[in-house]
């Protein structure tokens, strides 16, 4: 069996076994860990193959004559698959701590859906054509729905409606339309380096299709289709951390890059400025989201808006029509993932240890949770894009891309956004460490979250530093994108 197929079978089999082991929590958690570990091993071996120049493909089933579910590995998809696979391991450890300490209900269902969601992420990463991509995109939407509505409260049900409503509306009405339109216009849905639209349709049609593709991928959270993301924060924090900072939202921006490179074609975009409208929309999203984030007191809501802004960095990368920007966008998938998952882990740890969700309640919390808040600072600096943290590299390439494609305005957007990031993230750190707490709040000494929550936080923040020191971990893939 092709390793690509194995990479999909493992999470599926994992989901099944988790279901069977549901009665014995320890066994169930072991199954999750083993699944995540094996999955990462398989993805890593695939990655080595891809770096060596291999481009494995696999065909699953012919759905209708001429269209099949098919997989193919290429460098861009490998970045996304590696990030999702690696972080799933640590997110699982974190989940055990979080879910058990919080005494959450329906944990078996939680882990099953999680495994399926990760499986669909890999399916998206390895899609060989638009059809396969769309199938796994929808699998992801539906498998994450029970996770968003996990608590079953009226608020969760309402958030679930918004989640499904926006994601399904955009994907059926815009994305599917774009895919079928592409199929009718070009006679193929297969991804091809250099694009399948280039030279086949007029620039006008291509620009329209490009807009439909990007807005149709609601998981990119380009305004005005971003509301689902802040709403999805009702989910337990591990879901927000891995899915709504990494797997799900990165699926969106990964698709944006994939469309730019393999469907429309970067040169085609550059030659006719096909991305102008999208650049405006994404640029506005970057700024507005950062401004909204400044007004939020709920930590997870703030982080959600921060994610909305950061995702549009990658959308901008896709729309600029510059190879450097594409490399920067691809690297940002990994850099932002490590930074943002750290921040969400911290938010969850604060909730688990002290049941605090609002930033205004976190005065002086650095005294009682020094490690967590220190890691929070690292994550924040990486998101802002300062050295010595990974985020600096991707921002560097994005800026170079803006210069290369002569979009100076976008350079300004990146700059302003960095300042805004400082303005909404740093006060949290300052408040935690340098503001005196209210009388009698944190006087019990150091009280961190359980070790299962703390360990992943430390690992991912080390990751932020490691990615700065060894950017080749990502760049070696990014530079191989055709």
């Amino acid at each position: 069996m092709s390793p690509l197929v194995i990479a999909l079978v493992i999470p599926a089999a994992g989901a099944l076994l988790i279901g069977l082991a549901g009665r014995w929590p320890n066994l169930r958690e072991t199954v999750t860990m083993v699944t995540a570990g094996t999955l990462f091993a398989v993805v890593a071996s695939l990655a080595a193959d891809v770096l060596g120049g291999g481009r494995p493909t696999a065909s699953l089933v012919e759905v209708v004559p001429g269209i099949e579910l098919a997989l193919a590995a290429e460098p861009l998809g490998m970045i996304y698959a590696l990030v999702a696979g690696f972080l799933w391991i640590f997110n699982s450890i974190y989940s055990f701590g979080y879910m058990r300490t919080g005494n959450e209900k329906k944990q078996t269902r939680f882990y099953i859906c999680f495994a399926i969601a990760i499986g669909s992420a890999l399916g998206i990463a390895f899609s060989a054509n638009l059809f396969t991509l769309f199938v796994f995109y929808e699998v992801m939407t539906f498998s994450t729905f029970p996770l968003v509505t996990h608590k079953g409260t009226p608020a969760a049900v309402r958030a679930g409606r918004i989640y499904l409503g926006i994601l399904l509306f955009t994907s059926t009405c815009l994305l599917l339309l774009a895919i079928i339109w592409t199929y009718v216009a070009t006679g193929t849905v297969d991804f091809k380096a250099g694009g399948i639209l280039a030279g086949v349709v007029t620039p006008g049609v291509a620009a329209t299709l490009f807009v439909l593709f990007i807005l149709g991928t609601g998981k990119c959270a380009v305004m005005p289709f971003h509301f689902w993301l802040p709403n999805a924060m009702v989910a337990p924090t591990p879901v927000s951390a891995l899915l709504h900072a990494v797997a799900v939202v990165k699926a969106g921006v990964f698709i944006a890059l994939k469309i730019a490179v393999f469907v429309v074609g970067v040169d085609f975009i550059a030659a006719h400025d096909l991305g102008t409208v999208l650049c405006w929309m994404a640029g506005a999203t970057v700024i507005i989201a950062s401004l909204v984030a400044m007004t939020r007191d709920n930590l997870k809501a703030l982080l959600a808006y921060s994610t909305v802004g950061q995702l549009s960095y990658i959308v901008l990368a896709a729309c600029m029509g510059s190879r450097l920007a594409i490399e920067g966008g691809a690297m940002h998938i990994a850099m932002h993932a490590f930074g943002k998952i750290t921040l969400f882990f911290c938010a969850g740890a604060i909730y688990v240890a002290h049941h605090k969700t609002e930033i205004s309640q976190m005065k002086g919390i650095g005294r009682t949770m020094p490690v967590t808040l220190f890691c929070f600072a690292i994550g924040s600096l990486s998101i802002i894009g300062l050295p010595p943290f990974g985020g600096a590299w991707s921002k560097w390439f994005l800026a170079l891309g803006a210069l290369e494609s002569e979009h100076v305005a976008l350079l300004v957007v990146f700059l302003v956004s960095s300042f805004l990031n400082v303005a909404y993230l740093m006060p949290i750190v300052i408040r935690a460490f340098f503001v005196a707490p209210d009388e009698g709040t944190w006087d019990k000494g150091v009280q961190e979250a359980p070790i299962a929550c703390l360990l992943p936080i430390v690992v991912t923040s080390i990751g932020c530093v490691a990615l700065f020191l060894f950017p080749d971990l990502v760049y070696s893939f990014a530079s191989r994108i055709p």
Partner: protein
Amino acid sequence: MIDFVQKHLPILIVVLPLLAGLGALFVGRRHQPWMLALATTWTVFGLTIALLTRVLRDGTVEYAIGGWAPPWGIALRVDAVNAFILLIVAGIAAVTTVFARRSIAAEVPDYRWRFFYSAWLLCFTGLLGITITGDAFNLYVLLEISSLSTYTLIALGMGKDRRALTAAFRYLVLGTVGATFILLGIGHLYMMTGTLNMADLAVRLHDLHDNRVVLTAFAFMTVGLGLKVALFPLHMWLPNAYTYAPSVVTAFLAATATKVGAYMAYRFMFTIFGRTFTEGQFTVDIFLITFSCIAIVFASFVAIRQNHIKRLLAYSSVAQIGYIVLGMGLHNPDGLTGSIVHVFNHAITKGGLFLALGAIVYRLGDVTVGEFQGIGRRMPLTAAAIVVGGLSLVGVPLTAGFISKWYLIQGCIESGRWVVAIVVLGGSVLAVVYVWRLVELAYFTAPSQPEVEVREAPLSLLIPTWLLIGATVWFGIDATFTASTARTAAETLLGVIP
């Protein structure tokens, strides 16, 4: 024996259930009529598989009844189009008959069982006959057989709810109007051409395509068929009929009756009228597309507001029929493929969904919002079937509904009808709304009568339900059989394949 079956395959498909339908009255009491029905439907199912295989391999099969050569005698004529529809009708009948025993035992008093199975088999005969015949008048006769037995089947829902009687009566009135219009259409055609054989009609009408009498016939036919397929605004009979009929009857009718109506429309519009339809000055395609778009939007909105789940799905059927007719109106190969494949996909989806509702009725007596609350925990397998079927109604990838939607949109884009493409896509968003309402009721609300203990449905109900629901998944993942058969059928209708 094998030779005999091979030789007389087409007629056996009609004669076996006809004889069994009469026999059901005399085979005894209790479950014997059911056993007869079961044996008949499965045998016929096997025969239709054999017939479709033969048609796909050798092309059109003709059979002259009694050896009287057409156009004088009555001919049966089977090409890819009706062989495929026959398979759907027989397959659904076979599966729903398995479900019928317990469901009917619970919903119909036992002294009426043999009448029920007699009407059931006669209805089955009528639907098969309409589909297989190559003779226009013969089609009308069989249409009446199926309609009359359908009225009976719906009225048998009176044991539970006497509103079944008015529902049946209303359908009787409207159905008779529809059938009469069809008869008038056939009459006009006979007047002009002197023949009733469909193939012969097609040849003779070729040069008469803008003759006034032919146009009159076409108009009568369009309205009559519109009533039979329940195209908006001629759908008024459908919601009540589906709501008050016995559960298994609803499943059977929803999956077959309107589908056979769609088949009649294919046959008359494309094969018989041909140029009148495709080149005619009536621009019927615009009417069909407009009304089907209204059906999709309007019926979906109405479905969202329903509190009786059977009625909700009935309105959903009106919307889904919109998709089928829409593909007809596009008359390009992809659109028509979408229409035909949707006949199959919607049959298995809606059949499965109504069977699942039947399982809930079996346990709880009815299936309104009240019974539906918290059903996800009480009857997990049934509720899961409803979710999967619902996803197929929406047209989510990896379910059968997605395949039809794919082809329909392709057809819309090819003929440059962008607005229609948006309606098709918007229709699935509306479907999400009414399907998700069910999901929320099933999984996020507490049961309205928590003190009543409710167990999962028995296997004899679950297995047929999941056979159909499983098929929606199977034919969503590997749709090469359905899609290529529908494509052959569409090309046959459009005259690409003679």
